[in-house]
């Protein structure tokens, strides 16, 4: 009897959550008005990092697939955007879905033969992929990628006739995208697909044994995560106007991997992880050249103190109040 009250605690939580959400939105919207240009720029890059972290969270945090080559998919999106924009003048925002699709498609093609590999093998293969992509970009494949110098002159995005140029405009664009992503991915979490990914993360043999097509859902997670990374790449290209292979290295993948793991697997965790990984080094700027040293130490310390990550996903609760209850169990005595 006592346990059944658990269903009402869900609504209490929602009651607290809503004002909190409003407050957070107001805070996020007001924040750039108080920031100097430097910190606005920092927040834009944290926002891009959060988008990427959320996209990797689908693969690593939710489905438990060790992908340490996420920068490769980010790169595909950024380069597709840059090439189509500079050569054919396609507006950047139109290219968002194109960049996503290109990168998602690449991910599916690449992941298909390797998706069955065990965790650490998959990890090193994804590291290999990000290195191969970087080297391919440097070698100017097909004469399209501009070699080591990359591509410059990417147009700024335009919404309703407003050209997004200043950091403060990018702030709203990027963090709006983050909010939308959190909303969509949270819904996904609480669905058939999201549950299937959680099951796979926890025990893929058991998942397969209760009817989940493990290979298919792993690929789905890979494809979705890469799609989102591709779109983030398009925004990145539009923000920077110049992209080069140096932005898509193994270390960028490592930082994303760390952000997701620090976050612990939840959507808010992924955003928080991005703050820590892309924001902390900025705060440590006082340490000057030692800041990455301190960052490395902080990474170790955070994992030792909280190995499960800062915000692991909470137990999902479902509304069961509509079900009339009280039937006797089959095993009850006569």
């Amino acid at each position, binding site marked *: 009897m006592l346990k059944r009250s*658990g269903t009402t605690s869900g609504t209490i939580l929602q009651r607290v959550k809503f004002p909190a959400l409003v407050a957070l939105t107001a805070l996020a919207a007001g924040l750039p008005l108080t920031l100097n240009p430097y910190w606005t720029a920092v927040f834009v890059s944290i926002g891009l990092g959060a988008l990427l972290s959320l996209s990797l969270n689908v693969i690593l945090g939710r489905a438990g697939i060790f992908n340490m080559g996420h920068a490769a998919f980010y790169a595909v999106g950024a380069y597709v955007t840059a090439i189509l924009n500079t050569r054919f003048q396609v507006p950047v925002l139109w290219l968002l879905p194109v960049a996503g699709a290109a990168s998602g498609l690449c991910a599916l093609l690449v992941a298909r033969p390797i998706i069955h590999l065990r965790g650490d093998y998959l990890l090193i293969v994804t590291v290999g992929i990000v290195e191969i992509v970087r080297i391919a970009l440097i070698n100017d494949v097909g004469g399209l990628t501009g070699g080591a110098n990359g591509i410059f002159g990417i147009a700024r995005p335009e919404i309703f006739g407003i050209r997004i140029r200043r950091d403060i405009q990018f702030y709203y664009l990027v963090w709006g995208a983050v909010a939308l992503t959190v909303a969509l991915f949270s819904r*996904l979490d609480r669905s058939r697909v999201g*549950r299937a990914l959680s099951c796979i993360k926890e025990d893929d043999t058991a*998942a397969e044994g209760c009817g989940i097509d493990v290979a298919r859902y792993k690929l789905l997670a890979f494809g979705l995560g890469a799609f989102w990374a591709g779109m983030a790449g398009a925004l990145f290209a539009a923000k920077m106007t110049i992209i080069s292979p140096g932005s898509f290295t193994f270390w960028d993948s490592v930082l994303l991997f760390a952000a997701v793991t620090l976050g612990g697997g939840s959507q808010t965790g992924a955003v928080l992880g991005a703050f820590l990984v892309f924001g902390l080094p900025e705060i440590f700027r006082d340490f000057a050249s030692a800041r990455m040293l301190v960052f490395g130490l902080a990474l170790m310390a955070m994992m030792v103190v909280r190995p499960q990550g800062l915000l692991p996903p909470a137990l999902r609760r479902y509304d069961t109040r509509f079900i009339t209850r009280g039937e006797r169990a089959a095993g009850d005595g006569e």
Partner: protein
Amino acid sequence: MKPLLRLTNVTKRFGGLIAVNEVSFSADEGGITGIIGPNGAGKTTLFNLLTGNYAPDGGDILFRDVSLVGRKPHEIVALGVARTFQSIRLFSSMSVLENALAGRHCRMRAGLLSSMFGSAAQRREERAAVERAVRELEFTGLAEFLNDKAGSLSYGNRRLLEIARALASDPILIALDEPAGSMNQPETEVLVRLIRAVRDRGISVMLIEHDMGLVMQVCEKLIVLEYGIKIAEGSPAEIRGNPRVIEAYLGQD
């Protein structure tokens, strides 16, 4: 009664070891079939062949005239064969209700987009699935725990949750691998009633069990394996008097 499941000359080798050797038998629709035998007789291997976790090296497994050989485990679940695991494989950081919902997965259709954007059909389906999962938890006597972490349940209740998860997939046949393992006497009695109630719902049951009391009590037909070979088949009464079986069991100790 027509046979639901028919195994013919099913063989599985691991290197030089023949774990299951030319085993043939059939199980009836609506029956409770037990597979018994000493440790290492090949019982669990046989189950894993049935559920697609292993591929047989020879022979065929027909389920309602459809061959299960070469199919992946999730396809076999969709065809109507659900299982539990000897070593209890729940999703222990997920809630009890979610574990049962996971079993419902193969009867649901919602894809990526409808899940992300929450279409009306998706919400309807989700609601129906939650209701069905709750019903299975009520059926197995776990309803009071539905918002608890699966990992926090007692061992006996974890076994019951595995059964609830399997039942949520609308099985035609449910395969239970040592369902009474690590259960005490009162828990085992609840289990016996549950297995009968499952059968009364029209679901055929196949089980592996070491608890002879339970096997003799609930099974209508027994298959006895020793060293991968079927040494006897029949009703509990027939098996109890079978000299080969007595020898196999006594010889073991």
